[in-house]
């Protein structure tokens, strides 16, 4: 199943997937997505960077809190653990291009390695699934 880029012809939202969304989540228009070349999609997505990192540590902290809020898991309340993991994620981004999981190593194969961008799909991990006190492999997210 080959993923492709899709662009909303109304509001220019970009979707990367096997199929286009039926309904645009931003402008709520139906059947608005057209298959689009990756150069076009990337140009739209690649907004000019402000000075400094475009997503700071605080931005990331806020993003994971917001993400966890409506889920059955939360960010680990242990600040020492969380800060160490953020050190690793930001070091990996700086040295290797993306926020790869500090508790796994990238293989250098694209399809494999995008599975370890944080947050990964950890509810599938055996450290989480079916566990009463489940957590992601690193312990950044824990079950409520």
């Amino acid at each position, binding site marked *: 199943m080959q993923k492709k880029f899709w662009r909303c012809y109304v509001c220019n939202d970009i979707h990367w997937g096997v199929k286009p969304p039926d309904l645009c989540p931003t402008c709520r228009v139906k059947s608005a997505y057209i298959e689009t070349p990756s150069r076009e999609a990337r140009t739209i997505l690649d907004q000019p960077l402000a000075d400094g990192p475009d997503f700071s540590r605080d931005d990331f902290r806020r993003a994971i809190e917001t993400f966890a809020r409506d889920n059955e898991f939360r960010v680990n309340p242990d600040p020492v653990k969380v800060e*160490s993991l953020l050190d*690793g994620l930001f*070091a990996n981004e700086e040295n290797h291009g993306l926020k790869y999981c*500090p*508790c796994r190593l990238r*293989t250098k194969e694209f399809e494999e390695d995008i599975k370890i961008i944080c947050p990964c799909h950890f509810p599938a991990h055996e450290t989480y699934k079916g566990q009463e006190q489940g957590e992601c492999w690193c*312990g950044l997210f824990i079950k409520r």
Partner: protein
Amino acid sequence: MLRKIMFHGRECPHCKAMMPLVEKLIQETGIAVERLEVWHDEKNADLMRSFRPAIAAKCGGQLRVPTFIDPDASDVMCGEVPYETLKAWAER
């Protein structure tokens, strides 16, 4: 002498938790455990990748850290484990 490797990540909490246990193991048993950091050292990372089939088979299909491996027997164990488990692995 038995040679063992621990692959670890500098910022990985499970790796940090295992470090004192590995120290204790080395002191108690004299088994040499090479501790190789993989996110800040590409040479170590490539060495870990060279064991990918053996590691992935035991570690959820992935290159997880910490990973304990005997490079000859390809005896692999990964994750945070109690001292007794670590010792049993080292003495196998």
